[in-house]
């Protein structure tokens, strides 16, 4: 089928930030994840764990200690002493309220969603806020204590358990009465150090479970204040507890600073008897570092630390290796951090606080073989820092195909730069006057002729800006009426006529850029599109969704193409559907209109539409077999999906104008190597 010259790039030092806190909304099945750099992400668990929103790019100095869903509203609190509510439609903080209690360690809502409790560290109070329609309002303080580390509401809302130094205190929210549960310190030398109750959970039957820095998980009777049972789990700290949210609260998991997760279950010790006990049942170790955040859904444990999100199904009986029982690790964001100037051979890497512009290397030879000699090494042309320390982090960036425009956006502002790159001279010039309409941008994109800049803005609108040699001019705002969810994909067509947008409501809209109005909407599909692109010659729109389905939609006929229908009739190959990372970009081969190039984290794939689709029983990954076959037989054996797994941990795959591929890899080992050292443990034979 063809040879490709591949620029294999590994110099993008992308470093994801550690996961600090998580909150799971069991009604919408959305997981909110807060990272150490202050970024908040939302994953849709109902839709193949797709990361549908990068709610807010972080900010220097902001650290989120706790997240909390109240209904569909998301609140966070951090050591800066503020409570923040997020605008999930426009992907920005809606407001922040100073709680006047010093750094906040924890935040928790009652089950009715009317009250929010928050613990301050410095003054040791539990502050109650009332959740109103558009804001939260301070209601009252509970009596002053020592530093409060953890909180848990009783499901009835009548009691709050608070974990602090050396004790757990239980407040009755009605009567304001409190009582204390004293927590033992560690044995031996650590006896002199006070014990921190890192996590507390209050169950429906007034059982209170605590995890502390002495490595204990303790079970208390909340009514009488007696200690029922102590499990020594680790030599180090028990950092977090999570109670299964759905069932009868019969399972609790605890995360430790060793990276292990221990499950406890409330079961009878002998079959058929009624007296139930909290029994330690299972131990997992999926992490090398502290487990700081845990969520326990009915079927899965979700844990986050060492920058990865791990979803581990908790099936009691695993029949066989099915997709449901498979462990999932989400290491990379489901969006592009790399933009590529196809014509100029430039790469733009997006970091939280700076951008890097690189020029690819060259090889003068085209000798067949694995690796070509590199004549010119790749070089870093520009490192662009966001202006001030303490500013918002970059949420999106784009590089024009010709390599002469560069743009990035933070929550607050958009910047546009004009680049002039000759062989030895680089100049960068900031475009000073930008149209007012360019604000609150969460996706940026240049047209293929680099004359237009598209920016997805608030309320699912797209701002179109015309670029000139020197300045830029606001042209139009493209809008549609159906949804207010943010647009996460912008895809202009090669000829400049169409612009396809996709939002997190799973809608795909196509705008006619000549007439500046909505052309059509692709019939809604239940799964969120993860990549959308318009074919340069046929004008068909190809979309890939979080559930791995592929659709091809003809913009002329406004209907699904024949190939797409056939694909739906026949169904995709099971191995294709079993992949657990979404396709994040689609490209087309200008030389062969039948070729569609896709990639996810672990492979890239060329779909040849002229070849038969693979049946369920045919071998899907057949490149090795085809290689061994003679030419004529190869044609007979081959099917439409040409998958290449030579490159792993892909952040981006781009096709340059000279038809060479640029793959940007970020091996996980490199990320792990940059993590701080984990808790040292004696390993056997070391």
């Amino acid at each position, binding site marked *: *089928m*063809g*040879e*490709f*010259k*591949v*620029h*294999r*790039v*590994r*110099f993008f030092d992308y470093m994801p930030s550690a996961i600090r806190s998580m909150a799971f909304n069991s009604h919408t099945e959305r997981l909110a994840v807060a990272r150490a750099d202050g970024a908040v992400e939302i994953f849709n668990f109902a839709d193949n764990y797709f990361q549908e929103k990068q709610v807010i790019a972080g900010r220097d100095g902001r650290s989120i200690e706790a997240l909390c869903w109240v209904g569909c509203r998301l609140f966070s609190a951090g050591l800066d002493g503020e409570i923040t509510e997020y605008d999930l439609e426009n992907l920005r903080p809606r407001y922040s309220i100073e709680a006047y209690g010093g750094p906040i360690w924890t935040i928790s809502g009652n089950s009715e969603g009317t009250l929010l409790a928050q613990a301050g560290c410095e003054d040791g109070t539990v502050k109650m806020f009332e959740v109103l329609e558009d804001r939260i309002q301070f209601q009252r303080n509970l009596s002053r204590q020592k530093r409060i580390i953890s909180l848990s509401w009783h499901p009835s809302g009548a009691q709050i358990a608070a974990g602090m130094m050396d004790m757990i205190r239980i407040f009755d929210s009605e009567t304001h009465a409190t009582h204390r549960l004293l927590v033992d310190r560690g044995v031996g030398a650590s006896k002199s150090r006070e014990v921190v109750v890192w996590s507390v959970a209050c169950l429906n039957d007034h059982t209170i479970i605590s995890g502390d820095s002495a490595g204990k998980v303790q079970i208390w009777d909340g009514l009488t204040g007696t200690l029922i049972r102590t499990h020594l789990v680790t030599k180090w700290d028990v950092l977090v507890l999570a109670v299964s949210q759905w069932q009868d609260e019969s399972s609790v998991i605890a995360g430790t600073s060793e990276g292990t997760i221990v499950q406890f279950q409330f079961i009878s010790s002998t079959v058929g008897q009624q007296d139930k006990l909290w029994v330690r049942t299972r131990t997992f170790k999926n992490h090398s570092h502290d487990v700081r955040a845990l969520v326990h859904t009915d079927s899965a444990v979700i844990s986050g630390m060492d920058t990865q999100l791990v979803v581990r199904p908790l099936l009691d009986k695993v029949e066989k290796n099915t997709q449901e029982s498979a462990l999932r690790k989400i290491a990379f964001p489901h969006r592009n951090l790399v933009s590529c100037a196809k014509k100029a051979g430039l790469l733009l890497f997006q970091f939280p606080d700076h951008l890097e512009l690189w020029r690819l*290397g*060259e*090889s003068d030879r085209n000798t*067949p*073989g*694995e*690796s*070509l000699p*590199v004549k010119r*090494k*790749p070089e870093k042309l520009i490192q662009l820092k966001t202006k001030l320390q303490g500013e918002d982090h970059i949420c999106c960036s784009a590089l024009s195909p010709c390599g002469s425009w560069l743009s990035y956006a933070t929550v607050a502002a958009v910047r546009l730069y004009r680049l002039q790159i000759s062989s030895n001279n680089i100049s960068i010039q900031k475009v000073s006057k930008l149209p007012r309409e360019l604000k609150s941008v969460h996706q940026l994109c240049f047209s293929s002729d680099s004359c237009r800049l598209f920016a997805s803005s608030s309320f699912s609108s797209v701002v179109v800006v015309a670029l000139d040699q020197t300045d830029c001019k606001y042209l139009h705002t493209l809008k549609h009426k159906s949804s207010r969810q943010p647009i996460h994909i912008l895809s202009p067509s090669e000829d400049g006529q169409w612009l396809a947008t996709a939002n997190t409501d799973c809608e795909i809209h196509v705008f006619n850029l000549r007439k500046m109005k909505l052309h059509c909407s692709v019939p809604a599909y239940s799964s969120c599109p993860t990549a959308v692109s318009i074919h340069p010659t046929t004008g068909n729109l190809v979309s890939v969704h979080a559930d791995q389905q592929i659709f091809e939609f003809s913009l002329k006929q406004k209907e699904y193409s024949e190939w797409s229908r056939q694909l739906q009739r026949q169904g995709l190959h099971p191995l294709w559907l079993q992949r657990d990372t979404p396709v994040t970009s689609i490209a087309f081969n200008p030389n062969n209109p039948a070729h569609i190039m896709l990639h996810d984290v672990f492979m890239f794939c*060329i779909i040849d539409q002229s070849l038969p689709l693979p049946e369920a029983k045919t071998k899907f990954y057949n*490149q090795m077999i*085809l*290689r061994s076959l003679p030419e004529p037989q*190869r044609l007979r054996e*081959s099917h439409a999906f*040409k998958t*290449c797994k*030579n490159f792993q941990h892909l952040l981006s795959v781009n096709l340059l104008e000279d038809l060479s591929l640029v793959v940007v890899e970020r091996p996980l080992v490199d990320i792990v190597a940059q993590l701080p050292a984990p808790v040292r443990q004696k390993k056997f034979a070391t």
Partner: protein
Amino acid sequence: MAALCEGYTLCGLVPAVNRRSSEIKGIEEERDSDHVIVTDSSRSVTLYKVSDQKPLGSWTVKQGQVLTCAAVFNRLTNEYVAVSDNKVIRIWKEDDIILDKAFKATVSADVWSVHCAHGAEPAVLFQRGAVRLLDSLLSAPQQPVEEVLVQDEAIRWSTNIVTETQQLVIFTTELKGDHFLYLQRLKPNSVQKYRLEPEEPALSPLSFWASYRDKNICLLYLYPNGRVYQSLVSVRGPAPDDGAQAVPLPRDQLLSLPVGEELLEAASAIFLDDAHVAVVGVPHPSAGPGKDFLCIWNTNFQTLQAAKEMAGKLYGQLWSFSSKLFIPHGKALSVIPFACPRSSLALALGKLKQVKTEESKTSTVVPSWNTILHGEEAAPPKTVEARKTRTTRKTQSSLSLTIDQVQDLIKTAPVEEVEKEVQELLSRQDPKDPQPSLGQLALALVSRSLADPKFYSSRALTQLVPIRCLSHSVCPDLLPLALEKRDYFLCQLCLLFFHDIPEAVTCACLKTFISLSDADAEKLSLEPDSVSFVEMLISNERAQTGLQNGFSPALCEEDRTDAVDDPKAKAKEKQKASPQQTCPVGKHKAALINEVLQTAYSEALLLPHLKDFSSDQVVLFLRYLEFLYLRYSTDGFSQMHGYRSPSLNQVMDWVCMLLDAHFTVLVMSPVAKGLLLNLQSFVRSQVRLFSELGKIEGSLQELTKMKMKKDVGQYSIEVIELY
């Protein structure tokens, strides 16, 4: 095996910068093998005594005159003959001091060369091809000389050869790219012309060499492409009529020397004997592109037997007189003694099964002989020895006996004197560079011993065997002689050092060793390492713990006693069947048998001889083998210790052969029943072990298949292909 010895410089040369040939015009043997006359290309002739490396006399023609051919020595008259300025023949004696005052005669045509073979009259070869005997020429110096060669035909090389009846002058000519060989017989005169087969692509021979062998003249010639050809020419008279006709000369390719990509420029090849060719100026096949090598090739086996790198430029000139090579190179004319003993296949190939282990052993084995042989007055340190060798080389002939003299001595002298001289001779030898001719001494010793039953020098032979210049094929009577004389130490050494012992002799040794009574054996003094190995084997037998190699005696008992339920019977069975754990033979006997086990053999040839063993011998031998096998499989030390010892495979092979040879006898014999049962249980445990190993083989192979992830670095450009 042919060997080049350490060379020495005969005289210095003025280095030739631009010339392709050296300044040496020729070297001829003088009165004996130790004297040569060297004619240099300018004006002088020098007589050297080779062993003293010093000139005895020198003669120079006057300024303006040039010697145009190499001087020769006429042994009949003790006169030197040379030619100056092409036409002037000069004859002088050793006591003539000034050459100009000696005899001269001017002839009518240009002379190409003068030749004088051993005991023959000098013959003069004119440039146009005519040949005259010197006497007849000098009787009428101005006699007309006919032209044999046609216009443009020129002589390239000439020599003369004396056969039993005839004297011949041989020369080659070149005419327009064709090469011809002329065979000129003297008394009666006749000439025979041969045409050499042309060598593609139009190459001219670089060198010629002729020798007389089996009534044929053997012509050896080397082409620049490295091919060495041999042509045989009968010395008998040709058919009388075709004298003028050029007969095509058939040729055989003897060698095809590796020359690399370039053609040779200056090289030559000469016969050392009928199987060895010395070549100079041809690259060493394994030493890179340099051509500065002197090599000896065996033409029978096409093997490189010896090579020496020569310093400085080589001119492609080489002479050989009585086992010395004369080679001008760089700024010196070097003399390199060589030896080409008749080669056996074993020696020519030079390597056999255990060559590797032995090479590492020599250093440990050699000193231990010294301690046995010389007691505590150990041999002087090697450095001293080496220096002694160097200093004594010059005075060797006067102070102590040469190999030839010792060889003569062996024929007559009493044992003590022979032993003394042999030891003296050996102490002078460089242990790293033994002379192959030492093997001749052993041969002489053996033949004397065979002829004279009272003469037997064990000491001399035990000293000679380890120097690695002997093999069974060189001296086939040595080992049987040692057996006959009950010199088991010598037998052991022979088994250790000879790689070509016939299976019949091996079996004879084995039979003798097995039937040796232990009491006799204990008195023997044997090679100490082999004895201490057996000692270790025996001493370890009680200290053994654990099981090795999957075999445990207990396990195999369980297998066998499945059917036996009665515990008493079980215990009895156990006692009876417990594998042999004591060594059935004494340690000296065991050491001897071990030596046999390690010899090389061919199974098909060995089997018939094994059948000659009596059943008692077989059972004893089998019990010993079983003991060895058991020791090896229950202990970990089989190959770990530093001793030379039979390998487990060798033991197994012998067990199999013995069973093959005597199966029916063993099955019938009640004595052997327990033995066979044990062996069978070994086999079963081994089979089980290997079947278990076979099961994990697949998974182990997967490990090797796992390819290492290659580090691709930060950036690379690769080409992938999708199908």
